[in-house]
């Protein structure tokens, strides 16, 4: 398959969250992932979009979310950016800690990390860039462990 890259600039709305999820599902399908992997990818992108729209841009109509998909021979690379204050991951409590299990929020980044092979979070004063990679062929040599 040839390499392709598409990007979208989106408003800070709930509709963007749904659109991002649907687009991710379509891109993952076209990349040849199976049904379970498609669900994981689309859910990771949905959670990333929720973070960008709610926590990053805080529904600010003047701030945009950019979403980019890049298909390489080995990977589906997804980058989502917001224009918020910058996500400080160290301030997100571990959602699996006993004291946090019954909290009603704070699981988005955890789910993204659970579902994708590589997750990089790059916060800055002008926003947060969240990069997610899913390996196309599930090559064991490319597993999470091998990359750590």
């Amino acid at each position, binding site marked *: 398959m040839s390499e392709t890259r598409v990007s979208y600039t989106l408003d800070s709305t709930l509709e963007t969250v749904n659109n991002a999820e649907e687009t991710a599902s379509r891109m993952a399908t076209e990349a040849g992932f199976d049904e379970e992997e498609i*669900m994981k990818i689309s859910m990771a992108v949905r959670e990333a979009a929720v973070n960008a729209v709610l926590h990053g841009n805080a529904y600010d109509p003047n701030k945009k979310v950019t979403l980019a998909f890049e298909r390489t021979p080995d990977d589906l690379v997804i980058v989502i950016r917001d224009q918020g204050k910058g996500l400080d991951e160290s301030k997100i409590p571990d959602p699996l800690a006993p004291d946090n299990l019954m909290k009603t929020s704070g699981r988005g980044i955890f789910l993204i990390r659970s579902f994708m092979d590589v997750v990089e979070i790059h916060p800055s004063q002008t926003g947060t860039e969240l990069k997610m990679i899913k390996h196309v062929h599930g090559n064991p040599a490319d597993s999470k462990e091998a990359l750590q």
Partner: protein
Amino acid sequence: MSMKSSTRQVDGVTIVDLSGRITLGEGSVVLRETVRDLLSKGQKKILLNLGDVNYIDSSGIGELVSAYTTAKNQGGELKLLKLTKKVHDLLQITKLYTVFDVKDDEAGAVKSFTK
């Protein structure tokens, strides 16, 4: 697809049949309002039938936790019935599967509530 909710009574237990998606926005709001409405009416034995819930996101998970906690704090019981594989797997990886009382059989689930 948005979420639909309907309720029925079986032997003193309110079964809430949910279908669709429990996600940020409409789905989570429907679940929250349904549970709050039942509790305000004194219907405190609640069985959420998730057999037709095909998708749930982190907001939906948070809403299930909130419903469980709200019911418990008001002296009620809230249990889950018929998880789809997707929802089951999500509750497993978030370590919530053992927190919720999860049932597969409706009749058995109804009997399991405190008399």
